C-alpha cells in the first residue's frame, strides 16, 4: 500500500514535471468523474506549472469549498503538494486546489478542481437460484434467476449481468454461453434467454455485479439443466367408480419426452387434512391411479404434482382440485334418536326427534319407525315410515302417550344401498325417570360453552352415555330448536359443538342415558341457563307505583322478557328524583319490587328502574308519581276524632236538652196562660169563690207582649236570670177588659210608657189574679187581688179547662223596666245601674208591683209569648 502510494506520488511528480499549460494541475485528473470508494483514503496532488509564480507553500486544498486541514498535506517538492483524506459518505466531491500569495502581490491566483464521485463496491450476490417454467410442451428457454443483492446501495450505477453457459463436463473451444444485463439498482432477479432450454446437459449460472469502482461475481450455480426446470402440474380428473370406496384418478401431462414422477393427494371436500400417495406408487408411464379405502358417498378433492424423474427438477405446484363423490353404501351407523316429553294432566305429548346417521354413506330416503306401547300388560304396536327431509336438521314424529303407558321405539334409516343399524329408546311410565346428574355447571372456553357435571347416583341401570341438549330461549316456544349431542359415560365435561349466538340465552340440559337390555332410557334432566356472550338488556324494566304513601312508595316492575335480557340480570337499580335531587336504590335480581322510603310528602317524583347485566345496563321508561299529603290512617284519625267530637257534642247537647228540656221547652214554647183554668173564669162578683179552689196567693202580673224580636232578644239576654225567675210557681191569668170572658182589650201599661207606642196595638192587657198561695201552700186569707193584664193573646178557653190551671198557675212573670235593663246588663254595658238580684222565695210579695229593688224569683216554668 505504501509502495503503491509512493509510486503514485512519483507518477504524479513526473506528470507534473512534464508540465501543463495551466498554472495548476491536479493529479489524478479526468474529463469524467473520478470514482472513489467511501471509507477509503484518496490522495490527490496539486502541481504548480513551470510558469507559475507561486510556490508550494501557496497551495491550499479545499473539498466542497472547505479548506482541508494542513496536516493532510504532504509537500512533495517546491511545486507539488499532495493531500490525502478519507472519502466520507456525505462528501459532495468537489476537490479544488488553488494558490494565492498572502502578501500583496500582483500575481493572479490559480485554481484547479476535480470532481469525485463517491460510491461503494457492489456487494456479492448471495443465494442465487434459477427457474425455468414450463411453456407449452417444453421448458421455457427463459431462465429466471433470483439472488440477494445485499442491503447496501453502491450509490453508483450498477449492472447485474446474468451469465449462463452450457457445461459438457469438458473443455470446449467455443463454449455456448448466454447473458443478460439488468441495470436496476439492487436488482434481485434477472432473466436470461437460452434460446432453447438445454436438456441432459450441465448449466452453469452466475451473476456479475459491476459499477464504476469494480465488479464482483456471485458463486456459480452448476447443475443439470433440469434442476432449473419447474414443470406445470398435470391436468387431473377424478372419475367415480362403481365400487363404493374407490375413485379413479386420471391425468394428462403436456410435456414432451420427459419422464415425470407424480404425487397424488386427496382429502374429503372442505377438509384440509390431505392423504398423499407417494410417487413410488405411480408408475412413470401411467396416467391413472385408483384411490381406495375411501368413505362411501363422500366428496373427495384430488390434487397432483409432478417432478422430473430422479428429482432432477423442482416440484410443480399442486394442481387444481379435481372433485368427485364416491358411490353409495348402506348406512353404517344408526340414527341419533331422542325425544321431547311434554306432560299434561293425564297424558304426555311425546315428540320423537332423530338425526340422520352420521355415517349415512348415501342419501337417506326414509326412516322406518316401530313403536311398541305397553299399558297394563297390553301391547300395542305402531309401525310407520317417515320420509327423510334433507332440509331439516332432524326429523320428528309426535304421539300421545298416557302417563301409565310405557313405550319402546325402534328406528332404522334406509337408503338405496341398504338400511342402517337400529336405534332404540324407551319412554318409561310417567315420573319414573332414573336419577339425573349432579352439580351441572358451565363456563366459557375459547368462546365456546364448556359444560361440566357430576355422575348421577349409582342405580341398577348401566350408564351408557350422556346426552346434552340445548335450545335457544326465544319469544315463541314453538320456534325453539332442539340440539343435542352425546358423550361417553366416562366423560363428565365437554364442549358444546354448535352455533351459539351471542346475547342469546340457552337452556342446557344434561341427561344420563342408561342401557336397559337392548334399549336406551334417559334419566332425569338437569338444566341450566347459559350465554356465550352477555350484553346489556335490550329494554329496561317496566315499572309502576303500587303503594304511594306520605313518605314512602312501593315500586314494582315486571321482568324483562328472557329473549330481551341478553344476559343474566345481576341487579336492579331504582332511580327516583324530585327537583334536582336524585337518589337510587340497588336491589338483587330476584326482587321485583322495592319500597322507596324517606320521601317528601306531597311531592312529585320521577322514577325509572335500571336493569344490569355484567355487560351493561338499560334504563326502563320514566314515570312520575306523587306522594300523599297524609299518611295512612291520618285522615281516618282526624275523621274519627271529628266524628267523636261531633258525637260527643251532640250527646252533650242532647243530654243537655234532656236535662234542661223543660227549660228549653219553656224557651221554645212558652206556656200560654190558659184563661180557662184561670180562677178568674169563675170569678164574678155574682159568684163566690169556689170553695174547692185552693186558696193561693194570686198576684197579677202585667205581661206585655212585644213583638217577637224584642222578646226574643230579651229572652236571650235574660234567659239565665229568667230561668230562676220562671222557676217560681205562680198562677197567672190574663184579664182583659173588664172580664176574662170578654174580648181582649188593648191597653197601655202605665208603667211602661216608653213602650206604649209599640204595644198599643199588640199588647193585650190582662189582669191576673194571683192567689196568695204558692206551690200548693195554702194562701193567706187575703182576698184575691186582681191585677190587670195587657195581652193581645186571645184568651184561651182555659177557663173551660181548669186542668191546665196548675201549669199556668205555677208560672208567672212580669216584665218590668228592670228586666230590660237586666238584659242590657247581661251584655255588660250598664251592669251597675240596674243589677238584678235574686230574691228569696219568702221575701217575694204576692202582688208584683214595681218593687223598689228589682229582683227575680227563681222560676221553674216559664213561657214565651206566642
Amino acid at each position: 500500500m505504501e509502495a503503491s502510494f509512493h509510486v503514485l506520488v512519483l507518477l504524479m511528480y513526473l506528470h507534473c514535471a512534464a508540465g501543463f499549460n495551466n498554472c495548476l494541475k491536479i493529479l489524478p485528473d479526468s474529463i469524467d468523474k473520478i470514482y472513489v470508494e467511501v471509507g477509503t483514503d484518496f490522495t490527490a496532488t496539486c502541481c504548480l506549472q513551470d510558469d507559475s509564480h507561486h510556490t508550494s507553500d501557496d497551495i491550499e486544498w479545499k473539498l466542497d469549498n472547505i479548506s482541508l486541514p494542513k496536516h493532510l498535506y504532504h509537500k512533495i517538492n517546491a511545486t507539488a503538494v499532495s493531500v490525502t483524506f478519507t472519502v466520507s459518505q456525505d462528501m459532495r466531491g468537489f476537490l479544488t486546489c488553488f494558490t494565492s500569495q498572502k502578501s500583496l502581490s500582483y500575481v493572479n491566483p490559480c485554481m484547479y478542481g476535480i470532481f469525485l464521485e463517491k460510491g461503494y463496491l457492489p456487494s456479492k450476490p448471495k443465494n442465487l437460484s434459477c427457474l425455468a417454467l414450463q411453456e407449452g410442451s417444453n421448458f421455457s428457454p427463459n431462465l429466471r434467476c433470483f439472488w440477494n443483492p445485499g442491503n447496501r446501495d453502491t450509490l453508483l450505477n450498477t449492472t447485474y449481468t446474468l451469465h449462463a453457459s452450457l457445461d459438457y463436463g469438458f473443455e470446449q473451444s467455443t463454449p455456448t454461453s448466454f447473458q443478460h444485463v439488468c441495470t436496476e439498482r439492487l436488482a434481485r432477479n434477472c432473466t436470461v434467454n437460452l434460446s432453447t432450454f438445454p436438456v441432459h446437459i450441465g448449466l452453469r449460472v452466475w451473476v456479475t455485479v459491476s459499477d464504476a469502482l469494480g465488479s464482483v461475481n456471485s458463486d456459480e450455480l452448476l447443475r443439470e439443466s433440469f434442476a432449473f426446470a419447474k414443470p406445470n402440474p398435470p391436468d387431473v380428473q377424478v372419475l367415480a367408480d362403481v365400487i363404493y370406496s374407490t375413485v379413479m384418478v386420471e391425468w394428462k401431462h403436456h410435456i414432451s419426452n420427459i419422464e415425470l414422477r407424480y404425487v397424488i393427494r386427496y382429502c374429503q371436500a372442505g377438509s384440509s387434512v390431505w392423504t398423499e400417495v407417494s410417487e413410488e406408487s405411480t408408475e412413470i408411464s401411467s396416467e391413472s391411479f385408483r384411490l381406495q379405502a375411501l368413505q362411501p358417498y363422500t366428496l373427495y378433492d384430488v390434487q397432483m404434482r409432478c417432478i422430473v424423474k430422479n428429482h432432477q427438477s423442482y416440484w410443480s405446484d399442486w394442481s387444481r382440485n379435481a372433485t368427485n363423490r364416491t358411490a353409495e353404501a348402506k348406512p353404517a351407523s344408526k340414527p341419533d334418536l331422542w325425544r321431547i316429553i311434554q306432560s299434561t294432566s293425564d297424558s304426555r305429548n311425546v315428540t320423537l326427534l332423530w338425526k340422520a346417521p352420521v355415517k349415512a354413506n348415501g342419501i337417506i330416503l326414509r326412516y322406518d319407525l316401530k313403536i311398541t306401547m305397553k299399558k297394563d300388560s297390553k301391547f300395542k304396536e305402531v309401525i310407520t315410515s317417515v320420509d327423510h327431509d334433507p332440509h331439516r336438521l332432524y326429523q320428528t314424529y309426535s304421539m300421545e302417550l298416557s302417563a301409565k303407558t310405557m313405550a319402546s321405539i325402534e328406528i332404522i334409516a334406509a337408503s338405496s344401498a341398504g338400511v342402517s343399524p337400529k336405534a332404540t329408546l324407551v319412554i318409561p311410565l310417567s315420573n319414573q325417570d332414573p336419577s339425573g346428574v349432579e352439580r351441572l355447571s358451565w363456563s366459557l372456553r375459547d368462546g365456546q360453552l364448556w359444560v361440566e357435571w357430576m355422575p348421577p347416583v349409582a342405580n341398577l341401570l348401566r350408564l351408557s352415555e350422556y346426552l346434552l341438549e340445548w335450545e335457544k330461549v326465544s319469544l315463541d316456544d314453538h320456534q325453539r330448536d332442539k340440539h343435542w349431542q352425546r358423550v361417553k359415560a366416562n366423560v363428565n365435561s365437554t364442549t358444546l359443538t354448535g352455533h351459539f349466538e351471542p346475547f342469546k340465552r340457552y337452556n342446557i340440559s344434561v341427561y344420563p342415558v342408561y342401557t336397559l337390555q337392548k334399549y336406551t332410557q334417559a334419566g332425569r334432566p338437569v338444566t341450566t341457563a347459559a350465554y356465550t356472550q352477555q350484553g346489556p338488556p335490550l329494554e329496561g324494566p317496566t315499572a309502576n307505583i303500587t303503594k304511594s304513601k306520605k313518605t314512602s312508595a312501593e315500586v314494582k316492575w315486571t321482568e324483562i322478557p328472557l329473549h330481551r335480557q341478553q344476559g343474566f340480570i345481576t341487579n336492579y337499580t331504582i332511580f327516583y328524583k324530585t327537583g334536582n335531587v336524585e337518589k337510587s336504590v340497588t336491589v338483587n335480581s330476584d326482587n321485583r319490587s322495592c319500597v322507596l322510603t324517606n320521601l317528601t310528602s306531597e311531592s312529585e317524583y320521577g322514577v325509572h328502574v335500571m336493569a344490569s347485566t355484567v355487560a351493561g345496563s338499560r334504563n326502563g321508561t320514566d314515570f312520575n308519581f306523587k306522594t300523599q299529603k297524609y299518611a295512612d290512617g291520618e285522615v281516618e284519625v282526624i275523621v274519627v276524632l271529628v266524628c267523636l267530637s261531633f258525637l260527643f257534642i251532640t250527646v252533650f247537647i242532647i243530654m243537655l236538652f234532656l236535662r234542661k228540656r223543660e227549660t228549653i221547652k219553656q224557651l221554645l214554647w212558652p206556656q200560654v196562660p190558659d184563661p180557662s183554668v184561670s180562677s178568674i173564669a169563675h170569678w164574678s162578683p155574682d159568684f163566690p169563690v169556689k170553695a174547692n179552689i185552693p186558696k193561693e196567693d194570686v198576684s197579677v202580673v202585667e205581661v206585655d207582649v212585644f213583638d217577637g224580636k224584642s222578646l226574643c232578644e230579651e229572652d236571650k239576654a235574660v234567659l239565665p236570670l229568667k230561668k230562676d225567675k220562671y222557676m217560681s210557681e205562680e198562677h197567672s191569668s190574663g184579664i182583659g177588659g173588664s172580664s176574662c170572658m170578654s174580648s181582649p182589650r188593648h191597653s197601655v201599661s202605665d208603667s211602661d210608657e216608653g213602650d206604649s207606642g209599640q204595644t198599643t196595638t199588640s199588647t193585650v192587657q190582662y189582669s191576673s189574679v194571683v192567689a196568695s198561695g204558692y206551690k200548693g201552700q195554702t194562701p193567706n186569707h187575703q182576698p184575691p187581688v186582681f191585677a190587670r193584664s195587657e195581652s193581645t193573646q186571645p184568651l184561651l178557653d182555659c177557663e173551660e179547662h181548669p186542668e191546665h190551671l196548675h201549669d199556668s198557675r205555677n208560672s208567672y212573670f212580669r216584665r218590668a223596666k228592670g228586666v230590660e235593663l237586666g238584659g242590657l246588663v247581661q251584655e255588660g254595658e250598664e251592669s251597675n245601674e240596674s243589677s238584678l238580684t235574686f230574691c228569696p222565695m219568702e221575701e217575694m210579695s204576692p202582688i208584683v208591683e214595681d218593687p223598689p229593688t228589682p229582683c227575680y224569683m227563681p222560676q221553674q216554668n216559664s213561657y214565651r209569648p206566642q
Partner: protein
Amino acid sequence: MNVRNMIRLPQRSQAKHRIIFVVLFLTAVESTQPTKQARCENPSCSQHLHRGLKLIKFMNVTTAQLLKTYKASNGDSMDLICDMQMVNVPVSTISGQSISERISSVYTRLKEFLPHLKTVMEQQKDFEPPTNPVAEGLKHLIAYVDLISPIVNCLLQILQPNMPIPEPAERPTGMPPAQNTFQQKAYGCIVLSRLQEFLSKAFHELKSLRGKDNIM
C-alpha cells in the same frame, strides 16, 4: 524307442500346429474386435456417454413427435410422401467398420443433418406463422443437435485420441436446389424421417460403447 519317437514326431508337429492355430485364431479374433479397446470405461467417458445416450434418446423421441406433428400439419398424404427417395438428403445409415469409425460417422452425419434441419425450419416458417409448432420443434431439434455434437466429438476423442475428426462442410453440397411447395414439404418430412432413423441407430451405436459397469 524309435517307434515311440516315430510316433512322437507326428504328435509334436500336431501340437505345434495346434498352438500355431490357436495363436493365429486368437490373433484373428483379437484383430476382429477393435471395439474392446474403444470401450468407454473410464469415469469421464462414462459420464459423457451417459449424457449422450440420454440426449440422443430424447432427440429421437422428440423427432418422432415432431414428425408426427409435421405430418399432421401438412396433410394426410404425408405418409406416402415421406417414403419417397430424395438423393440430397443425408441417409440414416452409419458407416464404418470399427466403432470409432461408426462413432465418427455418427458425428459427421449429425453435422450433415444440421443444415437440412435449418432449411426445413426456414421453409416451415414460410408456410406457417413463425411460431408454428413444427418450426418451434425444429428450432429445439437444431439446438439439441448442437448439444449432442460436442458430446459425440468428445467421446470420439476419448476413444481415438489420435484419429482426426472429419468436419463436414458448413453447407453440404447435397443441399436441394429451389423447390416448390410440394417438394419442400416432402423434403422436410424426409429429413425428419431420416433423422429419426439415424438417431435410433446412433443411440444403439453409442449404447454399444457402454461398459458393463455403466448402466443407463
